[in-house]
């Protein structure tokens, strides 16, 4: 395809992405490298319904003047990236210098908000993604054997976890897993422990979130795999059977290789989405035990004073993290692409 034709075809899509993603992305990167102006503080008397107090206030005029001179704020380079709320280089160096043992060092590391969130986010991503792929494949294989009349309804029901908006889905599940709720009570009965609470301990919260992640992610993998199964070449299956392959061997040597490209596609999407896990953390009120990187961004953005620069830095770190995670898949795609190229 000629360059010019290509440009015309891609133009609408490209324009939308440049305007609404690329330009904001540039602005986010720029802002993450700035911090706000020095605020000129004065002490004023503030009065209200409950009496008067002497409190600090911002001298609006003086600050406005500083702001007019440099609208973006003060340039800070990568300072925000390395402060305590993000990569915390100084704190890590100190913890390493003062460590009593390796465990002690990791405890110090875990005390820093970014690393605490990273620990959960990575665990979540690396447990949920493979589980989703395996579960999705098993469901697809199972549904594929059903009689045609049952297939339709089963597909719809299988899609339900993906369809219900996570905001409400996790809210309802949160009530069900309450110590008094239907799932919580059942678990207490199963484990014979009347004090069992999924919300109180960090490990149980992690498990709950991970189970929810698998539950809500499986339908996507299922739909894609199920479609892939429809194209498995029946000749090769027949041939394998004639060679005396067992059912398991057929799946292992014929079906799975056929589905491999799909698994790559699913893992690409799942890695990315799981690394940005957010709604379940809020829905399950899990921010104490299992904050994620996206939750940190949310907390900066929605606190009493919006910290956009800090949120921007965490966002850029998230994008870098996703890119690192996807690198192996990307390299593979590049080879495929070169292989196909004319």
């Amino acid at each position, binding site marked *: 395809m000629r360059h010019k034709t290509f440009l015309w075809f891609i133009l609408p899509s490209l324009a939308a992405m440049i305007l609404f993603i690329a330009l904001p992305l540039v602005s986010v990167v720029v802002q993450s490298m700035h911090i706000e102006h020095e605020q000129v503080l004065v002490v004023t008397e503030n009065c209200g319904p409950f009496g008067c107090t002497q409190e600090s206030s911002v001298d609006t005029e003086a600050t406005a003047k500083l702001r007019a001179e440099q609208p973006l704020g003060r340039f800070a380079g990568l300072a925000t990236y390395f402060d305590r709320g993000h990569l915390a280089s100084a704190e890590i160096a100190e913890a390493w210098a003062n460590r009593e043992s390796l465990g002690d060092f990791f405890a110090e590391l875990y005390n820093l908000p970014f690393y605490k969130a990273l620990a959960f986010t990575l665990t979540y991503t690396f447990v949920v993604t493979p589980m989703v792929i395996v579960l999705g494949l098993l469901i697809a294989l199972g549904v594929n054997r059903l009689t045609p009349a049952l297939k339709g309804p089963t597909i719809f029901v299988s899609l339900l976890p993906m369809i219900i908006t996570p905001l409400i889905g996790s809210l309802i599940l949160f009530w069900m897993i309450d110590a008094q709720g239907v799932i919580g009570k059942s678990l207490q009965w199963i484990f014979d422990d009347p004090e069992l609470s999924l919300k109180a301990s960090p490990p149980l919260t992690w498990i709950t979130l991970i189970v929810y992640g698998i539950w809500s992610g499986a339908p996507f993998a299922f739909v894609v795999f199920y479609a892939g199964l429809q194209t498995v070449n029946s000749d090769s299956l027949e041939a394998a059977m004639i060679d005396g392959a067992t059912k398991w061997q057929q799946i292992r040597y014929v079906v799975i290789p056929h589905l491999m490209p799909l698994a790559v596609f699913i893992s690409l999407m799942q890695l990315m989405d799981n690394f940005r896990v957010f709604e379940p953390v809020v829905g399950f009120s899990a*921010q104490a035990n299992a904050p994620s990187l996206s939750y940190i961004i949310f907390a900066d953005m929605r*606190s009493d*004073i*919006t910290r956009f620069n800090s949120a921007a830095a965490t966002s850029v770190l998230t994008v870098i993290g996703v890119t690192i995670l996807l690198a192996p898949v990307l390299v593979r795609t590049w080879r495929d692409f070169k292989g196909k190229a004319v």
Partner: protein
Amino acid sequence: MSMMKLSMLGAAAVFMGTTAYAGCGVTSGNVSILGNDFAAIQAVAEGAKQCAGDGVTVESNLNKDYRDLQIAALTANPAQYSTVVTTNAAIVPLIGEGLIRPLDDLIAKHGQNISKNQLITVDGKVMAVAFMANAQHLFVRTDILEKAGVEVPTTYEDVVAASEAIKAAGLMEHPFATTSQTGWNLGEEFVNMYLGFGGEFFKPGTAEPNVNNETGVAALNMLKSLTEQSNPDFLTFDSNAVQASWEAGDLAIAHLWGSRGTGILDAEGSTDEIVSNTVLVSSPTVGGGSTPASSLWWDGFAIAANVSDEDAEASFVAMLNGISQENVKANNDAAVWLVEGYQPSAASAGVLATATGGTKPYPMIPFMGLMHSALGAELSEFLQGSESAEQALADVEAAYVSAAKEKGFLQ
């Protein structure tokens, strides 16, 4: 106040607004209101809409996330909203960025009916008009306390003792709860407790943090002994969860927002036994202090700086109509109104008692929000028992300092 009643009232107001003359004394201007979304503010917005008519338009956007919109919406010129309903915490960035205008001239012209204590002044200039108050205070179940043989607690030390007595009597496993969800709620609990102990969050006249001290440790230890009386899920408790537990009869003492009083005292969701024995009392004092360990909040309206004087005047008049005596009377139970003509009810007893006890208002300091977020994020480990109080407070200060540097309050 049921939603049904409110929306009927709203419908009536709209009807009157469209047919009646512009009865508020303004003849031109565009009024647009941004605010939080709950019954009292809905009532005020509907009241303001009665001023719509020839030449005057009134529209509102009530959104729970109004705080995320307000800065950008008022920074634009002309501002998207001419007036914003705000609180003592939410107003701080608006003042800091110079996005709201002083109201002195408008008050001189139209504000004859505003009582002096409604005016929010900063450095002598009126920046907002408050119309309702809120505070966290104690909700107690008198029947349970009686069975356990204890009085209604007036100090936090009594609250812990009463909870122990209730547990000892085998009445309840976890008799106490407060809004201790990690994040804003937990930060607010520490703020209350620290104020109750007489603490100052910052070194005077500076933005330097001042919580890692004996007072801070005492406040944290009190919080911990309270959460030990609470369900182990306490780090997930927001107001909704505490209210639900209360209505299910799982609690005997709760420290909860006064605005929840109406919902708890109505017949919905709970049994007669629970409702009839629920009493709303002042927030307790702590550590021998004389003022309750809580903080007072107001909701009020401010007028945007980046709108024409005509729109500003129309907005001011319309909002005054929203908090008029008639409108307040019609919505008496929706809030603890600071407006004359308000009749205190059983649901407002706790807030009024807390306010008359000399409780401090939530600090209107530009960097308080950063401290609040740091507190909300860094205290959970201590309450879970995996960190010392000193370490938790050191973490709070470190988190605050890095945020304050980024925002330019510290160098």
